[in-house]
């Protein structure tokens, strides 16, 4: 296949065209905008100055929100991984007739709007929600436990949204593993656990890393869970962008925050790719 160097480009051209026109070019507009000025009337004035960036780093307010966002994103990734790997492994190993049905169930939460799902946690965690209602009824507590409007609730909402991504990504790569490999390992005297650790786990890493990356990046870009389930301390960077772009119509500053977030994500994805990334694993696998 090497004799036709144009072939991959042919295969790639539709996606590249779409992404170039609808993503790369528009993002260039954002970069340009981030150097503009905003007049008090709401008009944007073309300019080339770094005032918007200077404003971001002028004091600790904005950088702290950015750091908080990264911390919350890492926590979410970690919990999603712990909660997601075992169900994915279950799907891989199970012989149950219900397997396809159980798989579709994973996607089921998406059928109820994200906003509604997030709001629904209020019915469960709120002062008059299900958990407090039951605890009060059986006399285990006397005043409702405050479970809403803190970082825990935000992470809860985020995981509820992102866990299916993690499970399915891990499952898809587990499913590609030949089960005879583990059998072979076991026939060579490995215990089940050893076979898992030496064979299955390493082979499932592409899915794990894809899932982690996805969850991390999506967490950095969502604003609804912090808005609905968070308290005043749980501001995240996407909320800030939403407020600047939509609330005060300050597109130049909103653009600057976006560019900073974007740069950060690009660096993370790049490092990820370089040291433990998707492509690295793809390569070693396709060689081996």
């Amino acid at each position, binding site marked *: 296949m090497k004799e036709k160097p144009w*072939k*991959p*480009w042919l*295969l*790639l051209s*539709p*996606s*590249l065209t*779409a*992404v170039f026109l*609808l*993503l790369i070019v*528009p993002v260039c*507009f*954002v970069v340009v905008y981030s150097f503009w000025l905003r007049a008090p009337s709401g008009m944007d004035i073309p300019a080339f100055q770094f005032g918007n960036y200077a404003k971001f780093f002028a004091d600790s307010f904005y950088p702290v929100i950015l750091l908080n966002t990264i911390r919350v994103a890492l926590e979410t990734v970690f919990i999603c991984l712990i909660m997601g790997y*075992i*169900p994915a*492994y*279950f799907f891989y*190993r199970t012989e149950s007739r219900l397997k*396809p049905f159980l798989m579709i*169930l*994973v*996607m089921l*939460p998406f*059928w*109820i*709007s*994200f*906003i*509604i*799902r*997030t709001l*629904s946690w209020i*019915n*469960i965690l709120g002062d008059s929600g299900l958990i407090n209602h039951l605890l009060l009824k059986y006399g285990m507590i006397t005043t409702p436990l405050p479970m809403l409007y803190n970082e825990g609730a935000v992470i809860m909402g985020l995981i509820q949204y992102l866990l299916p991504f993690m499970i*399915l*990504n891990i499952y*898809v*790569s587990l499913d*590609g*593993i030949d089960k005879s490999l583990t059998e072979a390992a076991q026939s060579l005297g490995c215990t*089940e*656990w050893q076979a898992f650790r030496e064979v299955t786990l390493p082979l499932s890493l*592409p899915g794990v890393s894809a899932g982690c990356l996805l969850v991390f*990046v999506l967490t950095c*870009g969502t604003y*609804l869970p912090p808005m609905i389930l968070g308290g005043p301390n749980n501001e995240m960077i996407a909320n800030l962008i939403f407020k600047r*772009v*939509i609330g005060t119509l300050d597109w130049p500053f*909103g653009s600057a925050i*976006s560019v900073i*977030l*974007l740069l950060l994500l*690009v660096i993370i994805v*790049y490092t990820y790719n370089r040291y433990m990334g998707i*492509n690295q694993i*793809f390569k070693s*696998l*396709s060689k081996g």
Partner: protein
Amino acid sequence: MKKLISGWTLIKLYTILVYVWMFAPIVAVVILAFNPQQFGTFPMEGFSFKWFVKLSQNSTILDAFKNSLVLGSLTAVFATAIGVPAALAFIRYEFKGKEFLNTMLIAPIMIPEVILGVALLLFIRWLQQPKSFALLLIGHVVLTLPYVLLIVQARLVGIKREYEEAALSLGASPFQTFREITFPLLAPAIFAGMLFAFTISFDDVTATLFWATAQNQTVPVQIFSMLRTSISPEINALGAVMILLTVSIPLAAGYVARRFARGNTP
């Protein structure tokens, strides 16, 4: 042997717990769809189908639902149609700038949708084009493309190239090879990719908010606008109906398939 079973039981138990947790808010939504009170909490005071009746008469929500379905299905088809070839190119070929391009195609999920929404609007204003359904559709395809790519690539890596090479050396054309060998092996991932693309598109709020014209509003955008006054439990009812459909159709299909299978082998 005994130890093995207990390990497996633990895995099962864990999976069940994750499911319970994942479905808690969904169950709450479905239950509250039957609550006559608008701001129902627990314990429920009564049981009624009133929101379902109201929903069946609400043409705004039903139209939005139709829009969402059409948009989601088209997005799924187009995103896989352009995503699968791209995944093949990345896994099966060596070429310059591969890593960079791969990252670029996954980029749409890295950009917060607020930005993407406004950026695209700026661009089409500059092009002096009005918004249209086509724009909304292409926008959704770009948004969902990374999911298709990630899933299909992860699966493609696991499919041994030797199979394809064997078919080729036996005289099959590259297209035949794809159809007979690669595609069947890839099918679960393609299906998963489509399902993902559909659901992401179906559930997207922020970008759709900016790209949709007044005529093609989707359900999430409708819900978002309801936030200002109050979200009607009709939305809970719609969710309950959708859950019922998605759960019952595969179950019914499975049941029918088993009945037929039994009928054939008396």
